[in-house]
């Protein structure tokens, strides 16, 4: 009798083991409810890019923050900056690095309503409804997906409210980003640097470096663009360009900035009297 009981218990335990092996190793349950933080890295990048594109269109920073939250990045700003750099270094993607960088900047600055382009959204509103843009701090604009229960939170993001009485319709007017100011222009005589190097540093208003900023350089017979963030070892907001002697350049940021005029490689001297072409360092900062 006792042997029989032990036999049954053993069979049960063995069965549980077989069942667990099947469920965990041989045939795990098909996954149909994964959160975005379980996505593969390249898909996370795609997800992040789309969050940035949606933010660029709507200027809704709290919602973008909430959406980034479900990706589970330890530091979303750092993740966005790193992705912007990867996108610049490998431009096969159809998404735009500047949107990603702009979202990172906006998160750093904590500013809402600063899309990088003006959205032209025509939202049909039913009679009796009023489209009421909500301020970022209002309860109705709380993040969509701060937790992993977006079904509930989605309902909290209502921007269309049914009003009992008609009120004038207010159109959201996005505020353009403030142009960058040229805060420093220095001549650098360092024989260790390549001759005629133009160094550009772009900082936001918190003095944090900004990656993915397009810089436009023009001269008499030409024009080129280059981007910050391609040399992360020198800083996310760093970019450089090789100037040629006897050419005068004009430099500005594509998204709007002061214009650095008359930039030309300086002539420098080593201690032993030899001359070489020095560098110019420009610093742009958002006021």
């Amino acid at each position, binding site marked *: 009798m006792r042997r*029989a009981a032990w*036999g*049954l*218990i053993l*069979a*049960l*335990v*063995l*069965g*549980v*083991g*077989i*069942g*667990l*092996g*099947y*469920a*965990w190793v041989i045939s*795990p*349950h098909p*996954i*149909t*409810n*994964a*959160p*975005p933080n*379980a*996505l593969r*890295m390249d*898909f996370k990048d*795609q997800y992040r890019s*789309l*969050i940035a*594109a*949606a933010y*660029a*269109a*709507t200027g809704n920073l709290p919602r973008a923050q909430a*959406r980034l939250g*479900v990706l589970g990045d330890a530091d979303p700003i750092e993740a966005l900056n790193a992705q912007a750099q990867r996108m610049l270094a490998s431009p096969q993607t*159809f998404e735009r690095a500047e949107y990603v960088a702009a979202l990172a900047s906006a998160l750093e600055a904590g500013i809402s309503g600063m899309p990088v*382009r003006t*959205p*032209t*959204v025509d*939202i*049909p*509103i*039913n009679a009796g409804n009023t*489209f009421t843009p909500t301020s970022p701090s209002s309860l109705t604009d709380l993040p*969509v*997906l701060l937790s992993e229960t*977006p*079904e509930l939170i*989605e*309902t909290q*993001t*209502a*921007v*269309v409210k049914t009003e009992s009485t008609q009120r004038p319709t207010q159109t959201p007017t996005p505020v353009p980003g403030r142009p960058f100011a040229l805060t420093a222009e220095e001549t650098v005589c360092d024989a260790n640097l390549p001759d005629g190097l133009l160094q550009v540093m772009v900082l936001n208003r918190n003095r944090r470096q900004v990656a993915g900023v397009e810089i436009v350089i023009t001269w008499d017979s030409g024009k080129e663009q280059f981007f910050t963030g391609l040399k992360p070892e020198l800083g996310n907001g760093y970019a450089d360009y090789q100037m040629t002697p006897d050419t005068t350049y004009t430099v500005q940021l594509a998204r709007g900035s002061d214009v650095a005029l008359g930039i030309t490689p300086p002539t420098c001297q080593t201690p032993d009297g030899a001359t070489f072409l020095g560098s110019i360092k420009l610093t742009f900062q958002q006021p």
Partner: protein
Amino acid sequence: MNSTRTLWVFIVLALLAGTGIGVAYGWYVNPVDYFDTTPDSLRADFKADYVLMTAEAYQAEQDPGLAARRLAIFGTKSSSALAADGLAYARSNGFTDAEIAIMQELVTALQAWSGIQ
């Protein structure tokens, strides 16, 4: 003889019951932790939000080809069908009228766009 056969029947039944318990535990109570998944495994609400983001970006860009490429991440269906799935979810899960409107616009644009491909 008879009691031995009965015992074996119970042992086999215990084995089957244990297997059932193990499978149920491994599938439902404590399933495998997934990572590096593909977008088609996303929960329906996240998929719908992805469609909504695509629709928001489409409002500004007006580029159905770009929207279709963004939705192609899900892989299995046409972009217009994926957007329609997102729209259906939005309609039945309390998305706002404005959100539903722009998703509807995206579906229409993708249907027209796929018609000329």
